[in-house]
């Protein structure tokens, strides 16, 4: 435990509390204001060295918030909606991958690996998916940085735009939560946008998003098989008849390695709470803890968004993701509204 952790955590808490205070004056959810404040401070003044320690832990706070949030989620609601949600998640992931790959290869003609990284980032869980898929297809660092910056640009935009669209269209809490969970990219912005709309919307958004995140291993394996086969085909054409080459062995272990472990914690806490082991006061305490963890996480998330990095995206990848997002989000909005 580093000596600079506590002062730097105090900075995050300070930004979060300021966000909460500002939210009492202007009608915007405190998590959105907290991210905006973090973004403003991080880009105007930079992150001081002593604050780097806590900023680097924002993912842990987000995951902790999600784990204990499990106590506030009603299991019967999850079971009732489970099959439909699972089908919707699988359909959305497949549709997003196909749409982004087609746009990248046929319409905007960008480099194949970059297209695949964008498809993974858009369909599963943002930058974590970009990194996981990059490992399974052995993409080079420049393409990873390019794809990650594009995904981050959309994370930073959609977290503000989605709640506005939701309110403008008068969506119900359930529809908004499921829609945001299905179509937005990284877990942090999905959580912020969901809870900015309402607590119920936030819980739905998280449930759907966690289901989506759980598919990361499967998508990584599919991409690994595809790229291993493509590489093997290219190599087999260039060698003599007896010099055949074996494609890279797909590591099924990556299913577990890439699986987001905090989802297990979320499920376990959800089950413990729903079996009646916790009183309503204890569930309220855990819900408060979850709120505090999100507050710290989003202050850190805002501080970490560097607008300079987002400028490094090219216009073609941005157009690919923008077109894909508009198509998938529109279609899924109609589907979710018809079903829920």
């Amino acid at each position, binding site marked *: 435990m580093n000596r600079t952790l506590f002062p730097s955590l105090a900075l995050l808490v300070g930004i979060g509390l300021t966000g909460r205070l500002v939210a009492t004056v202007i009608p915007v959810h405190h998590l959105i204001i907290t991210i905006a404040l973090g973004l403003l401070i991080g880009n105007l003044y930079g992150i001081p060295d002593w604050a780097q320690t806590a900023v680097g832990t924002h993912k842990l706070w987000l995951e902790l918030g999600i784990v204990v949030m499990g106590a506030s989620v009603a299991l019967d609601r999850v079971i009732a909606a489970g099959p439909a949600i699972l089908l919707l998640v699988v359909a959305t992931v497949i549709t997003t991958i196909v749409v982004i790959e087609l746009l990248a290869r046929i319409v905007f003609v960008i480099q194949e690996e970059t297209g695949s990284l964008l498809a993974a980032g858009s369909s599963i869980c943002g930058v974590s998916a970009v990194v996981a898929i990059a490992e399974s297809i052995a993409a080079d660092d420049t393409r990873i940085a390019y794809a990650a910056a594009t995904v981050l640009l959309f994370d930073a935009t959609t977290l503000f735009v989605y709640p506005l669209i939701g309110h403008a269209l008068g969506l119900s809490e359930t529809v908004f939560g499921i829609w945001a969970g299905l179509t937005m990219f990284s877990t942090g912005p999905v959580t912020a946008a969901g809870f900015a709309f309402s607590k119920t919307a936030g819980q739905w958004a998280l449930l759907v998003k966690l289901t989506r995140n759980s598919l990361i291993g499967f998508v990584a394996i599919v991409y690994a098989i595809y790229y291993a086969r493509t590489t093997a085909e290219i190599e087999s054409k260039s060698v003599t008849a007896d010099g055949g080459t074996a494609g890279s062995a797909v590591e099924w272990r990556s299913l577990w390695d890439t699986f987001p472990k*905090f989802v297990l914690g979320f499920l376990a806490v959800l089950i413990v709470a729903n079996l009646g082991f916790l009183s309503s006061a204890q569930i309220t305490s855990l819900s408060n803890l979850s709120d505090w963890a999100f507050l710290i996480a989003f202050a850190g998330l805002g501080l970490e968004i560097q607008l300079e990095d987002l400028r490094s995206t090219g216009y073609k990848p941005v157009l690919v993701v923008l077109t894909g997002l508009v198509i998938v989000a529109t279609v899924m909005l109609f589907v979710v509204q018809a079903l829920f």
Partner: protein
Amino acid sequence: MTNTDHVSETLTQWWMTLESGWQAVLLGFLALLVVSIGVPIPW
């Protein structure tokens, strides 16, 4: 180095080797433990 220092260092090193997802799970269960023995969390 005292025994306490040694234990503290070993624990810190072990903690740093965990994925953040596992850290979140452990902290979550620590929270669960705290509220289940009746110690209220402030705020």
